């Protein structure tokens, strides 16, 4: 897929919670096609302490208005600087980068996400829905404050929630959710994105049920385009780049 570099205009900065915000960005030309799981490398121009671009998933797209949106969690100087962008500001993106998820080979699919790991899942849910699937979407967090915009997913599948403290949905980790007792066997594929321990736990459960599992990794990156070899992950075929060969990997190919 051809990659682009464009100056987007911030059309809206939506402060969702204290920690999360979404940027709506308008493309100066017509928005190229983007696939679920793909990301952009974002240039943070307004932070004195941020040098490299920041990889951020494509959260949503609107080809009618040539807009895309990013869902971002404030974790450090770069994301905090991005949270201060205002309508009319310019944001430079290198995009769309990386691979995408594969389509289910059977009937049902389960999407599991934790924290900002929901970002790449919205486009995936949309695509699955448009292809006639009705995926289950399981969102986990420490508390209810970590469950961001679950309503966005409802049009595309059934949404389930877990929190560590039980403040929303079922109490416990995602892999302790009741979906994992019986229904789990009905999925032909599981997709996951979230903190490393969560993805590993999901991968283990999937493997134990012999269900294909694809996870989206968030390795630290320098270039995002396969030029630096910094973002590698160990696979059964040697080191692969997360930015070009990933971020989506079949867990069976990974040395987890």
């Amino acid at each position, binding site marked *: 897929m*051809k*990659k*682009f*570099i464009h100056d987007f205009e911030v059309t809206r900065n939506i402060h969702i919670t204290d920690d999360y915000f979404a940027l709506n960005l308008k493309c100066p030309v017509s928005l190229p096609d983007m696939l679920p799981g793909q990301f952009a490398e974002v*240039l943070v121009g307004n932070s004195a*302490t*941020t*040098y*490299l*671009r920041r990889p951020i998933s494509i959260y949503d797209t609107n080809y009618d208005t040539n807009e895309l949106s990013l869902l971002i969690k404030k974790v450090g100087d770069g994301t905090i600087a991005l949270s201060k962008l205002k309508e009319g500001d310019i944001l430079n993106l*290198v995009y769309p980068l990386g691979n995408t998820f594969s389509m289910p080979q059977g009937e049902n699919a389960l999407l599991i996400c934790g924290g900002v790991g929901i970002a790449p899942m919205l486009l995936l849910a949309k695509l699955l829905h448009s292809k006639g699937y009705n995926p289950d979407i399981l969102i986990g967090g420490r508390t209810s404050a970590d469950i961001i915009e679950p309503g966005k997913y409802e049009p595309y599948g059934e949404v389930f929630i877990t929190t560590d403290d039980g403040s929303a949905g079922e109490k416990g980790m995602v892999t302790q959710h009741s979906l994992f007792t019986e229904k789990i066997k009905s999925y032909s594929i599981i997709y996951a994105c979230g903190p490393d321990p969560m993805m590993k736990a999901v991968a283990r459960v999937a493997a134990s049920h012999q269900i294909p599992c694809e996870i989206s990794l968030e*390795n*630290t*990156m*320098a*270039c*995002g*385009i*396969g*030029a*630096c*070899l*910094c*973002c*590698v*992950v*160990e696979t059964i075929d*040697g*080191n692969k780049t997360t930015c070009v060969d990933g971020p989506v990997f079949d867990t069976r190919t990974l040395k987890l």
Partner: protein
Amino acid sequence: MLDLSVNVHKLLLKNPVMSASGTFGYGPEFDDFMDVNRLGGILTKACTSKNRDGNRYPRMAETPSGMLNSVGLQNKGVDYFIDVIYPKISHYNTHIIVNVSDSTVEGYMEVAEKLNPLEKITGIELNISCPNVKEGGMAFGTSCPMAGAVTKAVRGVYNKTMIVKLSPNVTNIAEIAKAVEDEGADSVSVINTLLGMAIDAEKRRPVLSTITGGLSGPAIKPVALRMVWQVSKAVKIPVIGLGGISNATDAIEFLLAGATAIQVGTANFVDPQVCIKILDGIEEYCSRHGITDIKELIGALES
């Protein structure tokens, strides 16, 4: 008409702007962002005698105005390069210079010898300054006898343009430059990365799997510029300057300090079009200053 061409030994570069090894893949990674043929040359990712997996992840850490990397020469070896990669890049109409690395003198020789016949590989850059491998690497570049020895050995098997890439992690870089000049280097590139370290204070662990790594980016520009200036006064062969170059002004500074050509490394990550912007910026600078031949700027620092 503005003449941007420069000569690095036998290589006539159409302009002094090249991409630095390990930061530009093999070229095609940047095809979507620029016409790679406009560059004076491409320095490929390091090529070693055998396949190397490189170091374990994490391999990079951001630092103030720079980054540390400890990729560690990941590549599939010289035979794979010749069989698989070379055919994919030999269409480029610019100099392709292969960055050659290894852990032993014999390894360097093997790679150089195998690359010698490749028509479109017009030169090699001996990387005797990689801080990210356990054996060889930087050790070759931090003592005059060793730097001289590897240069001499490769010179014996390679008869096209041989550039030697120097390590900045030394007390006296001019001395090392002279040692490799004496043993037949056609040019030196100055500098590779500075040895650095990053720590995750919360986890109380090194960020990199290798503990230390190579520092690059704008942070090191003042050191690189100083070394280019020192080396270009000490040797007669052309000096290729690099280290933190991010815009045309930076590039001009390196030329003034004595570099015949420049390489752009880490800046490619921040702006994948930066090489072309630097090229355009150099043209603009020349026309603003009434310069008709870029060679007028080389070493033209008044002091």
